């Protein structure tokens, strides 16, 4: 029972890591940018969700509001920051690093703005359903209705992702622009627009992660920083290129950390994340779902 319950808790937190990892992988695939600002974009979106909850007491209104905010912030980050940099810088070492530094700057900027508006103190809002664990007979496990809801929401998001990416024209354009932007252009894809849409989807996904994780922690201008790190670890475990990899990476990390927290020590969780990462990279340097290459590619 203890093992099963630990596993379920791992799946629940892993679902949130997966969402964050999906956001990071999407941006990486569409613009080759390691987006540190994702934590900032998500925190700003979550604060707006918090605003809705404090005014309406309606979690189910807060989620879509945060998602729209996340999408808008994501699109703006691409249009105002990444696009001009890519247009101006064509080659050299700066090409790779400038956008990353820019996202770090954006992260700092958003944190300051959020701090100015809402203050640095910890905010709290309640989960929409019970956070008390399920009870079976005389035993109560840590896994709650809210954990179930988190897993369910993550599954819904992932099903939507799978559908959009594999079955729609937008998904095809997103993949083509990510893999081979020049060929995509020559096929008529408006690559700049498609990239911005990628940033927007990533922003919305990060916002969901923020709104889902916050009832279990609390909200402050940098309360999602740890989630960003764990999201990156998940994304790299999954090979950074692969959406399925991001999901599996998040789940592996979630379950692994839950086991360590439960059976080894609570203080080991953070370093353990990196041990998991490094072990996986040593065994499979491209990550679990690193790109396969076919004939002479």
């Amino acid at each position, binding site marked *: 029972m203890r093992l099963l319950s630990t596993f379920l808790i791992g799946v629940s937190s892993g679902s949130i890591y997966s969402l964050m990892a999906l956001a990071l992988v999407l941006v990486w695939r569409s613009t080759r940018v390691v987006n540190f600002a994702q934590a900032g974009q998500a925190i700003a979106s979550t604060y707006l969700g918090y605003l809705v909850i404090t005014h309406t007491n309606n979690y189910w209104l807060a989620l879509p509001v945060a998602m729209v905010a996340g999408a808008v912030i994501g699109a703006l980050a691409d249009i105002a920051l990444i696009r001009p940099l890519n247009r101006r810088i064509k080659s050299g070492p700066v090409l790779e690093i400038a956008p990353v530094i820019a996202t770090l700057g954006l992260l700092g900027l958003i944190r300051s703005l959020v701090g100015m508006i809402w203050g640095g103190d910890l905010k709290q809002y309640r989960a929409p359903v019970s956070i008390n664990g399920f009870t079976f007979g005389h035993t109560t496990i840590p896994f709650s209705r809210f954990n179930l809801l988190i897993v369910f929401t993550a599954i819904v998001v992932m099903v939507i992702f799978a559908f959009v990416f594999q079955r729609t024209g937008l998904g095809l354009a997103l*993949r083509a622009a990510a893999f081979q932007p020049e060929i995509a252009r020559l096929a008529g894809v408006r*690559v700049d627009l498609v990239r911005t849409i990628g940033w927007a989807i990533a922003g919305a996904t990060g916002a969901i992660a923020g709104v889902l994780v916050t009832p279990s922690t609390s909200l402050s201008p940098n309360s999602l920083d740890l989630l960003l790190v764990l999201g990156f670890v998940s994304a790299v475990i999954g090979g950074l290129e692969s959406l399925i990899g991001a999901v599996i990476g998040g789940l592996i990390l979630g379950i692994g950390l839950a086991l360590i927290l439960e059976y080894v020590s609570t203080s080991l969780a953070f370093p353990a994340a990196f041990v998991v990462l490094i072990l996986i990279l040593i065994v499979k340097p491209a990550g679990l779902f690193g790109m396969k290459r*076919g004939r002479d*590619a």
Partner: protein
Amino acid sequence: MTLQVTNLSINHDAIEAVQDLTFSINEGELAAVIGANGAGKTTLLRALSGLKNPKSGSATWRDNSMIGKRPEDLVRMGILHVSDGKTVIPELTVKENLALGGLWRKDKTDVAKATTEVLELFPKLGQRLAQRADTLSGGERQMLAIGRCLVARPELLMLDEPSLGLAPIIIEQIFTALNDLRKRTGLTVLLVEQNAMSALEIADKGIIINLGKLVAQGAARDLINDPTLQAAYLGY
């Protein structure tokens, strides 16, 4: 004159890859641009498809400027470019690569019809629809790259060395398919080749360039038979 290139010069930093190039092609013609490695053929096509900004000069398609436009806008003007290296998207399936070519078009019925026609032109692709493009042979990839453009119903098709690295029998297949197609549809073709003989055989017009400059242009039949050109540029 359907395609008119006038005094076009294109630089790569200090390298003058194309210098003061002037030529034209009529509606429905197949023109072959012949030149050795480094002659500036790829650079020329990249400028005509919006991938590279020229230094000076002009290029028009049916009196609309092709310069300063993005590739995706030129595609919407009916100008399609099969770039060098059998450019398909390896991570996508054959079916997805074809679908990509018609994504921007509103007339989905005609996209389906055009796709069927591509599969009739290149039946091998039809047997590989669900495979990833990187599992294809070089010849099949080239067919897929051309097929992807045909799904867009091009009016001007520009191809960069489609024969490179392919077996003679495959080259023959592809060139015959191209020639049949343009005779059937009135498509205008700008075919860039080092393989002078194969290209000039199906071409109406030949344009010979060397080190970025025009050497000769004229009816393909006349160029094939010109002894000085044969020795210096046509390689036989």
